[in-house]
């Protein structure tokens, strides 16, 4: 204890020595002004920080050698998993009815990011292929709807499967040349691919409209519009159901539809992870050479992971275009790829629940912290560093399938 105290005092003195010339004096006109309180407070902060650090390190030291038990939060989550899932589903279904238009849009965006996170999680988390150009497939999906509508009057309902297929096609096409690459090289090639797609969209003015973007119509439901007035030959939903018009209906509809898609994706990933294909993805991540020695063809396994990830991003892109009513290339920069990757890393590579939580947190938190907008990047960076130190494997642990001997055998 005295040792820690002594360390803290020493750190305080050093901080004082540093901060007095750095922050204690400022130039005002031609005279120097002293702010003697500033360095003092900073030094106090350093002393407290040093004390905390010492306490933390000591605690770590004590824990070395003892087997690490999962924290009570993880244990509680594990024990109550079905209830948590049911509560989350009910909560997600109730949320759109009372949060208002602004937060509804945030929620839609959050769901889109959940979808993208789940897709990238297959590629990066399960198959171990570091993809920094994931946003390319997102753009392919969004522009499938936008261009399809512009040139062929494609409807939303046709754009979803078409966007998914086109994005998956792009994913497979990209995957072919990079099959022999690993880690860093793969990351750089995918990064380049993402930029190529964005630059094409930006510069091919005659077709894509370039930076001016394209307008995208809102989806209809069974041919019913969500607008105040119906387009020729259509009925509006509120007239059909005989309820007063509200411009929230369309967002609620989109939200619920997206929620359904996300549920489908969660189900799909959950099943796949317990299926031969999903196990092969993970095996490939662990050791490609061992996979080949067991007769697993890395080519098909990688292509399927890339294809499924890209497909998900494509669907997300169509929804994004529909919810924004407008697309242009600035939505598909590298930063977007990094954001999705951050979701996957923060959620814990391969963990579905973690990815969902991370996507929601990373979308909603910046909105909540709008007042601190200038510090958003700083907070984000700190959160990432803390996560990597405290929980390098993500917010939630990964649950592996457990097998028990059947009674029959």
């Amino acid at each position, binding site marked *: 204890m005295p040792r820690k105290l002594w360390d803290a005092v020493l750190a305080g003195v050093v901080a004082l020595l540093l901060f007095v010339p750095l922050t204690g004096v400022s130039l005002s006109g031609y005279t120097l002004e002293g702010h003697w309180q500033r360095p003092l407070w900073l030094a106090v902060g350093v002393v407290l920080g040093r004390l905390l650090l010492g306490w933390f390190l000591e605690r770590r030291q004590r824990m070395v050698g003892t087997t690490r038990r999962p924290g009570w939060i993880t244990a509680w989550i594990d024990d109550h998993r079905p209830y948590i899932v049911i509560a989350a589903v009910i909560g997600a279904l109730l949320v759109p009815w009372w949060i208002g238009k602004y937060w509804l849009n945030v929620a839609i965006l959050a769901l889109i990011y959940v979808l993208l996170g789940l897709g990238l999680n297959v590629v990066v988390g399960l198959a171990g292929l570091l993809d920094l150009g994931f946003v390319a497939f997102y753009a392919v999906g969004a522009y499938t709807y936008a261009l399809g509508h512009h040139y062929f009057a494609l409807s939303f309902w046709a754009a979803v499967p078409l966007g998914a297929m086109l994005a998956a096609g792009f994913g497979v096409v990209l995957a072919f040349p990079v099959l022999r690459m690993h880690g860093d090289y793969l990351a750089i090639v995918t990064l380049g691919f993402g930029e190529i797609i964005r630059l094409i969209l930006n510069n091919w003015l005659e077709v894509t409209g370039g930076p001016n973007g394209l307008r995208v119509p809102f989806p209809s439901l069974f041919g019913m519009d969500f607008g105040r007035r119906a387009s020729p030959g259509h009925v509006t939903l509120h007239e059909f159901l005989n309820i007063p018009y509200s411009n929230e209906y369309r967002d609620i509809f989109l939200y619920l539809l997206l929620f359904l898609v996300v549920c489908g994706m969660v189900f799909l990933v959950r099943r796949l992870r317990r299926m031969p294909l999903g196990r092969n993805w993970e095996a490939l991540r662990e050791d490609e050479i061992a*996979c*080949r020695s067991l007769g697993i063809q890395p080519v098909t396994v990688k292509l399927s992971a890339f294809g499924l990830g890209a497909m998900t991003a494509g669907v997300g892109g169509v929804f994004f275009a529909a919810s924004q009513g407008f697309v242009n290339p600035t939505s598909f920069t590298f930063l977007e790829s990094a954001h999705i990757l951050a979701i996957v890393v923060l959620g814990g590579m391969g963990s579905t629940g973690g990815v969902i939580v991370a996507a929601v947190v990373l979308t909603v938190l910046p909105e909540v912290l709008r007042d601190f907008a200038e510090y958003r990047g700083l907070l984000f960076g700190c959160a990432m560093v803390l996560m990597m130190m405290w929980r390098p494997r993500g917010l939630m642990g990964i649950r592996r399938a457990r097998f028990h001997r059947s009674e029959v055998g």
Partner: protein
Amino acid sequence: MAEILSVRDLTMRFGGVVALNRVGFDVRKGSVTALIGPNGAGKTTVFNCLTGFYRPDAGAMRLMGADGVPLDLMELMGRPFQGSDWVSPRSFARRLYCKMFGGAALAARAGVVRTFQNIRLFKEMTVMENLLVAQRARVDNRMVSGIFQSSGYRRAEAEALERAWYWLDFFRLSEDGNRLAKELAYGRQRRLEMARAMCAAPRLLCLDEPAAGLNPNETRELADWILALRRGHGVTVCLIEHDMGLVMEISDHVVVLDHGQVIASGRPERVRDDPVVLEAYLGAPEGAEEGV
């Protein structure tokens, strides 16, 4: 008496270095064949060629198929195109396929399965998952039936599980089924790697130094297991090993390599007393001592 594998004139160069120079040997069905030789003799290179990780420069490798039809392993590795390949579309397609996707995966599907000198497990996966991954040929690979859990899929999955349990019991790993592979002790990891190889239904099992790092008791167990595999499960074993005691005990046939060439082959006692072999092992006379 039938040979399951015959290797002829296998040659492999790395730049100017001749790693294998016209290596030839036969492996009889149901036998245990040991590849021995000093470090750098080319033993592992032979394994890498057999299992498709290297494409040999020249030579022939034939594996007797389960149906009695010999299979050209060199073709599976994707040998260069020849004039005759362009004649029939079918042979062309096959050659193209082998060229693109060939090598280790196809060799493994043909029944040549190996383990590694430095253990290669799927570390972040459980022991059972390791074994299930290996059962590529026996699980239901169709996406749709798996996603909707058709009865056929569930039956295939249950059979795969049962087989995995069988091999876990065989290698006495039953309690570890749900542990992560990386958590196992070293000896158990070696056993798991063998169990995983067995799950891949090998016809020719290639073990690369299976006794490396094991204590004498574990080595004894290993010898029993290898003999049991060959007796009870009709597996042909080909192994690289430095432990001469083990080699003399379990192998029916020994091939000695030195500087990429076969310098002796035959029954273990014969090879052990061969002066050429003793000379190659200069300064490492374990082989000679074991016999005394």
